[in-house]
């Protein structure tokens, strides 16, 4: 186990309820972990914040061992670990920060990136190689990949899967029962969806094989594709059954109606969009952005034997958003052991998918081959 004496934060903004605040406060002030309050003793935290960005450190520098450094290089010097946090939702990586960290942090340290590891598969690979050359352990994540699931299920390793689906949203759904800080961009929602789905499906028989093709659908085309079985309606039903936040009449009077069974989903959905992914081993997965239908994240997967498991990915209420406590506990373990809790290839695949999703040619409505995404792990 490594000793943690100094952690450096390189952050784009520090405002209340930002990912930077959630992560920095947990390392600086402490957090709930495994049924008790946990604070790393004698930990020095140094911060580099982009000049001119928002900052609201309050009395933290007076109350806790927090140092604001003038440069990113100075912040990471002599650090045992580095945390890089871009703006919420973390879908656009700050590659300059990562470059500084991997070139200037001590050999043998560890680096955690909140959100996407990098903005392309190629740069993610370059950073991974650079980290390895400098013996710096590297990891990226959001809380979605590690949060509590309702129910607390996981896929049994080696389960043969046939289909998978996740429902997320792009922006706040309603004045009522809004989730804590939704992604607020399609790219953010894509990141959350991949962070929710990949940790489940990568446990299937044979592991993750990479993605052979992607297809973007929206509006009526998305529903027609569902009618044709291009994405699994039964899995949408199962995923929606896990939601605590059905919209529509539930907002009006609290009723618990069957949104899909009553045909309400297409009526409620605002600007419905989706990505259909075909993995290289034949698994089909679907990411549906259903603003206006529910306002929480829910997934469902079907095994080859027909059995279905589904769950909600729980996000804790503001202001604490305790799913960040789960993430911090895992990041702290990573810093202490130098061992990543999942293969870095998950982060590579996410970076590659986000890059591909962002290409105008990917939005044609037709299947697009993605040979470059043969990231297996």
């Amino acid at each position, binding site marked *: 186990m490594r000793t943690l004496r100094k952690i450096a934060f390189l952050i784009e903004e520090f405002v209340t309820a930002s990912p930077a605040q*959630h992560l920095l*406060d*947990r390392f600086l*002030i*402490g*957090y*709930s*972990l495994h*049924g*008790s*309050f946990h604070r790393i003793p004698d930990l020095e935290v140094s911060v580099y914040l982009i000049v001119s960005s928002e900052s609201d450190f309050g009395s933290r520098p007076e109350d806790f061992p927090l140092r604001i450094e003038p440069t990113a290089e100075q912040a990471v010097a002599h650090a045992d670990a580095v945390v890089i946090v871009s703006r919420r939702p973390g879908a656009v990586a700050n590659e300059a920060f990562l470059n500084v960290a991997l070139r200037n942090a001590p050999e043998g340290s560890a680096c955690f990136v909140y959100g996407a590891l990098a903005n392309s598969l190629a740069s993610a690979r370059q950073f991974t190689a650079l980290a390895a050359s400098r013996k710096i352990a590297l990891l990226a994540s959001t809380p979605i990949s590690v949060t*509590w699931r*309702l*129910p*607390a299920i996981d896929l049994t390793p080696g389960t043969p899967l046939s289909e998978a689906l996740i429902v997320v949203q792009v922006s706040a759904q309603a004045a*009522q*029962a809004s989730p804590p800080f939704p992604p607020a961009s399609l790219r953010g929602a894509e990141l959350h969806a991949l962070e929710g789905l990949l940790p489940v499906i990568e446990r299937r028989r044979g592991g993750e094989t990479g993605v052979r093709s992607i297809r973007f659908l929206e509006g009526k085309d998305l529903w027609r594709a569902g009618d044709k079985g291009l994405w699994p309606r039964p899995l949408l*039903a*199962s995923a*929606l*059954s*896990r*939601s*605590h*936040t*059905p*919209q529509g009449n*539930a*907002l*009006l*009077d*609290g*009723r*618990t*109606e*069957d949104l*899909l*069974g009553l045909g309400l989903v297409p009526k409620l959905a605002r600007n419905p969009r989706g990505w259909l992914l075909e993995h290289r081993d034949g698994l089909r997965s679907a990411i549906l952005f259903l603003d206006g239908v529910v306002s929480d994240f829910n997934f*469902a997967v079907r095994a080859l034997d027909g059995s*279905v*498991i*589904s769950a909600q990915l*729980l996000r*804790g*209420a503001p*202001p*604490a958003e*305790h799913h*960040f*406590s789960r993430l911090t506990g895992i990041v702290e373990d990573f810093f202490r052991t130098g061992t990543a809790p999942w293969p870095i290839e998950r982060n590579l695949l996410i970076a590659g998918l986000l890059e591909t999703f962002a290409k105008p040619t990917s939005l044609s409505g037709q299947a697009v081959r993605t040979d470059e995404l043969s990231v297996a792990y």
Partner: protein
Amino acid sequence: MKTSKLAWTRRQFVSTVGSAATAAFVADAKAFSAVPKAKENTGKRRIALIATEARKYSHAQHFIDRVLEGYGWQGRHHRPQLELAGLYMDQFNENDLSRERASRHRVKIYPTVEEALTLGRSKLAVDGVLIIAEHGSYPRNERGQTRYPRHEFFQRTAKVFEESGRAVPVFNDKHLSTDWEECVEMVQTAKRLGFPFMAGSSLPVTWRIPSIDMPLGTPLEESVCVCYGTIDSYDIHGLETAQCMSERRAGGESGVKSVQAIRGKAVWQMLEERKNTQKLFFAALSRSFTCRGRYSTALPDLEWLKDNHEHPVAYFLEHFDGFRTSVFLLTGLVSDFTYAGLKRGNGEIVSCQMYLPMPPALSTVADFFNPLVNHIERMILNHVVPYPVERTLLTSGMVISAIESLYRGHALVETPHLKVAYKALDQSSFWRA
């Protein structure tokens, strides 16, 4: 206290219920016909729902809608094998939803409890009864307790059973009554007529985070719940949060010997003196998602609480076997329900949050009612209760005695009448699938 209408004294109750309460209340229909044995059923069972008022997010709305519309359960939208055949509403709020529901689903609202149970005929015509007497405008007694008509609805239901020569399963939402004699009478009546009787809060059956169980026979010595809300309202939820874990301890539940309730800064003094309780208090608090200290991620310490939280309420209970339960109502500090229990010997603490996605902040539909309605459905279909009604009998008595303690200026109230002994069932009933 009111005199029980039935000749049933506390002593008789203690000796009878205390020894016989380990059974799971499988219906004994010796004197009554048409109470089916436990079996798998395929057809829908008709039920009557007797409620005080139905408006958005009232308890009655939650129950009515789950029966009529279905709800998410085990990865699908589940439509209960129940038909809401008779509805009785005691009050119609200006935002009443019962008439809209009744109209849209063709459910008849009857003018009396009896007609809802008999569907306007001469004899009982339903297979199960839900009594949802929470919310609505009802008088308060001198101790500040709202006199919801749970006991009245129950007794009128039981009278129909007796007159019909048939009894069916009954669910009573939340605590039984604000009067101990009435609580006893309700349980005794259910036993006498031999029908499954289920009651209580949704807290014992909702999600737990983490999803832990208390193994039956665990050598526990103390339980703490940290929660929020007001007396005679949310205290029952806090007590049931603790009790659904405590009852699984080695030896089972022995009943409660004394109750002391404290309001104000004296709570923090008591916590300072009771070191084990203090450990459990902070362990429970660490499971909260909503604790509001100086910083959102940090737990407050006792000194901060003394300075910043001036209106705590706490119930301290001692059980007959020496076990201790404490419940802290900390409105303003937390808005969730957390639990911690101390194991005897090794000092290990077991803790979790009983997750209550409360609308409108955390949900739109209060899904913690889903497992409760599912348990009710299975009770009506199979005539087996998921947990002994003695749990809610005891927690009802705890609430009554705690309020008595507050009324008497934080006096320690001896509670020999709460010698309600029972054993939990092997299978826990919380939501985990």
